[in-house]
């Protein structure tokens, strides 16, 4: 007999968003794993079985008790991978997979009854494609990576005739104990104070649009990849400025907001992994958080100084990343302060990997990473390859032309500042304005 367990703060927040919105489908995410060859459906199902049953944060239902308190009820029924034959291999895999996933993304999961993941193995003559649709309450980006990596380990063990690996996932109860520890709670208290102090010092939070929209409005995606030569210059600038390529991209986003609003206070919404302790890093669940990254820039700073400021602020943000954004908004509301606490949201994704399934290479396509009421920049960091950025924007606030302009401005800012790292922020902003960006 298994007993229902409490939810973690992150799970609870996602459950509330789903329940209050009444639009559970907004929180569906999807990914397509493209196999560069044919794979064994049997081994894949066996692998899923092993991974699923090794974790009660996967093998569960999110039930609602009579008093409306959500609970996690262990349930080891493993989702069946639904197999479908395709007559031809798709020419444009991403477009095909997006089209395939569309109806499943549009359908809400029944949190009480269903496993929060659906898997489809699409079998074409040359290649196979695994489309996974899941609820964000089940997994975040890191959790998804952990799940995928474990699936791959199991598959490769089976292909070699080896025993399935022992998966040492952290279980829900261990996670709850960690989050209820005195040290963790003290950290939360401190985080609450710090974040509220930061926001008190922020004069105004700007994003790329002045209008407002509901999270329920549809999102569209524009995907852009840096030119190889521009990316090399960004990498070189990172070496000179003793920073990282991703901090240069954040500086470029900040510069493009400065160019638009002529205000040197910039606040970005940073998606934080929010996994510090080893048990959190070994749990396929939802844990990530979005918090304000206030940057008090000034007109005279060069790239090196801007990147140093961003680095310093991110380090400070890491110390407070466990305090939920929903709680922070509640704090602001109680104090009668603005609920506009995040600018454009930025998600740095270093999780990319292309594992081989018994020698068959793979390519991963993120089909949907959730919904935003503003704009979210998903920055895929791919080892030595140029970064790819998905601009997911809410169509009630941004036209396709607006998003294209935002993309052009940010890419131009990165290229200009990396090429001439000694330019000041005001000079970069002026150059962007002169280019009509």
């Amino acid at each position, binding site marked *: 007999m298994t007993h229902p367990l409490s939810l973690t703060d992150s799970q609870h927040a996602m459950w509330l968003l789903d329940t209050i919105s009444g639009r559970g489908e907004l929180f569906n995410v999807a990914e397509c794993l493209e196999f560069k060859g044919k794979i064994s459906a049997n081994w894949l199902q066996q692998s899923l079985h092993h991974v699923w049953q090794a974790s009660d944060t996967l093998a569960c239902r999110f039930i609602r008790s009579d008093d409306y308190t959500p609970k996690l009820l262990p349930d080891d029924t493993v989702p069946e991978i639904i197999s479908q034959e395709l007559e031809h291999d798709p020419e444009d895999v991403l477009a095909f997979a997006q089209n395939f996933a569309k109806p499943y993304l549009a359908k809400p999961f029944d949190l009480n009854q269903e496993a929060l993941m659906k898997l489809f193995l699409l079998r074409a003559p040359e290649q196979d494609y695994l489309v996974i649709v899941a609820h964000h309450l089940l997994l975040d980006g890191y959790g998804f990576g952990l799940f995928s990596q474990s699936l791959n380990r199991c598959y490769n063990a089976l292909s070699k005739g080896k025993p399935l690996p022992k998966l040492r996932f952290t279980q829900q109860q261990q996670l709850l104990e960690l989050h209820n520890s005195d040290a963790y709670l003290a950290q939360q208290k401190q985080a609450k104070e710090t974040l509220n102090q930061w926001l008190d010092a922020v004069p105004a939070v700007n994003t790329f649009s002045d209008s407002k929209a509901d999270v329920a409005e549809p999102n569209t995606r524009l995907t852009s990849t840096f030119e190889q030569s521009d990316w*090399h210059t960004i*990498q070189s600038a990172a070496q*000179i400025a003793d920073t990282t390529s991703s901090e240069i991209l954040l500086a470029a986003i900040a510069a493009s907001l400065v160019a638009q609003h002529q205000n040197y206070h910039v606040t970005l919404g940073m998606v934080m992994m929010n996994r510090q302790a080893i048990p959190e890093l070994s749990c396929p669940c939802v844990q990530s958080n979005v918090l304000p990254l206030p940057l008090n820039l000034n007109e005279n700073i060069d790239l090196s100084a801007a990147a140093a400021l961003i680095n310093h602020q991110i380090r400070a943000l890491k110390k407070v990343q466990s305090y939920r954004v929903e709680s922070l908004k509640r704090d602001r509301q109680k104090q009668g302060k603005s609920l506009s606490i995040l600018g454009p949201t930025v998600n740095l994704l270093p*999780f990319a990997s292309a594992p081989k399934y018994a020698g068959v290479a793979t390519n991963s396509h993120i089909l949907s990473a959730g919904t935003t009421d503003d704009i979210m920049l998903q920055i895929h960091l791919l080892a030595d390859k140029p970064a790819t950025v998905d601009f997911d924007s809410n169509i009630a606030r941004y036209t396709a032309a607006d998003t294209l302009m935002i993309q052009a401005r940010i890419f131009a800012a990165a290229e200009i500042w990396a090429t001439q790292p000694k330019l000041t922020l005001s000079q970069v902003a002026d150059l962007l304005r002169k280019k009509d960006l």
Partner: protein
Amino acid sequence: MSIPKLNHYPLPRDAELPQNRVDWELDPTRAALLIHDVQHYFVGFYGEDNPLIETMIQNIQALKAYCYEHNIPVYYTAQPIKQGKHERGLLSDMWGPGLQDPTQQPIVDALAPTEKDVVLTKWRYSAFQKCDFEQQLRDQQRDQLLIVGIYGHIGVMTTAVDAFMRDIEPFLVADAIADFSKEEHMMALNFVAKRCGKVIAMSEILGTQSQDLTSLEGLKAHILTLIDCEEDEFDEHESLIDYGLDSVQVMNLISLWQQQGIETNFIELAQIPTLAAWVELLEERKED
């Protein structure tokens, strides 16, 4: 028609260098150094204070000092100004009239030749064309040529090909050349390593070892530069995330290991975030 404006890029790291087909050993008694076309005119296309050029010049300075110390003769090439159509030949069709301003003709100040050095007049991509360079090397009993300077995939690479065809062993110094782009830089290195010479790093010539980022000591030294912790307080069994190592820094490490043919990913490293566990994992992957 002219050379485009050029940007900076990171010079290749030792681990990025292509595999050489030949096993030639650099011998100071057989070698000469060629500093190729580092004239104000060609350097000017990179703009002022270009970090790529600054690093290349520093490396050439160090290499030149090494050559003086080991009695290795140093040669320069420099193109003349205002070449006539007949003198410039097909280069005019490809690049326009070329160098016209006398102030742009000299070698850059930081690498100015001394009385000990020989400056050759450069007429074509290869330093050997329309010039007695080969004879000068023979007279000095030199049959190995270290080549540095600009531009990697044009004159530098062509001179290496020409040296090879004259039975002179070319050594291309990977981090003492500059090019239009990293792609073209790597293309030149790959071609030379596979077809006509040996690609070599500064560290190999100068005997300065680069950090081995797969060993406990090498990786520890690297990580200590990224985190806020003193060496004597660092514990290889403690979580690197607690020490403040962030996901982007981990990603950079993954990229460095990838260049050495070792595949890892963020998720597997994050689950065992200690230096000791990472070194163990890297050892396993090397055996794979």
